[in-house]
């Protein structure tokens, strides 16, 4: 069953911070939810190709079309940026120079 340490690790992977109280709550709820979804283990399902029998996978291809004019959407997209320099999105520096 889930431990608070495991849930904390999942939160870190998902780039989310959980308050301590919330961590306890989520952990106990996870136990109930996982106990329920665990019932899936009793389904007998064929493996591999037998599983997809009769359900052809289709690849979806299309011809390359004429691209839109360069910069047609730049202003609309840039207007959503929280910080911009001209048409560029401004973010924090990630490599520090010693």
């Amino acid at each position, binding site marked *: 069953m889930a431990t608070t340490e495991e849930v904390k690790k*999942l939160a870190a992977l998902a780039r*989310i911070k959980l308050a301590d109280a919330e961590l306890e709550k989520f952990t106990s709820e996870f136990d109930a*939810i996982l106990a*329920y979804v665990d019932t*899936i283990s009793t*389904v007998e*399902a064929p493996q591999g190709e037998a*599983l997809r029998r009769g359900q052809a996978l289709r690849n979806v291809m299309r011809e390359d079309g004429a691209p839109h004019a360069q910069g047609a959407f730049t202003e*609309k997209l840039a207007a*959503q940026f929280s910080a911009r320099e001209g048409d560029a999105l401004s973010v924090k520096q990630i490599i520090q120079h010693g």
Partner: protein
Amino acid sequence: MAKLNELTIVEAARALRAREVSVRDLWDACIKAIEEKNPELNAYLEVFAADDAAIAAAQKRIDSEGENAPLLCGIPLAIKDNILIEGKVASAASKMLENYRATYDATVISKLKAQGALFLGRTNMDEFAMGSSTEHSAFGRTLNPIDTSRVPGGSSGGSASAVAAHLALAALGSDTGGSIRQPAALTGLVGLKPTYGAVSRSGLIAMGSSLDQIGPLTKTVEDARILYEAIRGKDILDATTISDGLYETRKLPQSLRIGVPRHLLAEGVSADVLAAFDATLAKLTEAGHTLIDIELPTSSHALAAYYIIMPAEVSTNLARLDGIRYGHAARGTTLLDDYIDSRTEGFGEETRRRILLGTFVLSSGYIDAYYRKADAARAVLRREYDKAFESCDVIAFPTTLSPAFKFGEKSDPLSMYLEDIFTVTANLTGMPAISVPMGTVAREGTVLPIGMHFTAPHQAEHILFAAGSAVQVAQ
């Protein structure tokens, strides 16, 4: 004539063509009703200012084209807050996207605009379409107009409440596990989840990409058909959309063979809901349709499979929301802080819960036991449905176990998840499904609507509409 905002699409289209009303009259009637009732119901998160040019263009088109004008020309609709309308905020009822303005129209919106339809506003929903009650909105709950102490269902609860209270003639919602059909059932409306790929998802804020479909919430089956026909079709912007005739074409039979999986109804369904279901089936047999016993054994595992596959897709889809390019942008010391703080502040509790569940079922060491197993169960389920449709035209069960519940009644997540127990199968199999009103049951002296649910084979929406109409006539 009924009040203008209470008309169906069919009635309004006729009245517009007969010059009994103008497009402006219809718009104003809806806005007046919204001003009176929306402050209490909170069905709309935002009501749009009248688009005078669009109203004038629709009127002109009806005047000049008459009967040839599209049926939706001049019809005011409500749109769920996860469907993009260029220039308008599309927040998915989340703090994360509270300030996000759509940079393009969803394909369904382009299609509706081409028909001359009008948009009244954007409707409330569970955050990112995760929930069955609209209690998980970041902007307050929506009330059920039939009994304001009860939920309107979810996640398309705002759209359902708006149409049920006549604050719009019809609405669009989205359905990942029942989010159109369950609120339709709980508010006495018709709700359709089309075949996966029938309607473009371009411009729909993604939740579970292998499950999501946009569809109508309407007052009648015919209105649902009209709206569905207007929004469907292959779209170059969504590679999962399908061509007509991809699946075997099924002729509409004179009388329907209705498959009933009795084994699923043995427990959980409220006695009076089951009685109403049986009474409706009895009326359908009187009308010449036949009932067939069918078995769908893997259905009992469908909800478990859904609550593995859906969070897996949610955690993947919502990973793009990081506070950098758009949406809520919190700033900390490092770039990683920017991501974490934006996501922690932006996402509500249920959204975070499902992201973590999804992260878990996809993680190394668990992916075989959970995600891959659920995916296999999904294939088995689909095969069972295909088999069942060899002997019947539609499959029937109640849309929900019981009528609308009270606010706060389902406070633990698992009990809320069980609301979707019947509806998720259509999303897992990709088959189309409809909920139509099938009478009422009483709770604490209040008469509440419930829904009859039909599933049909892929691309057999026409059979669903026939089944839905048969129920409508039998009421």
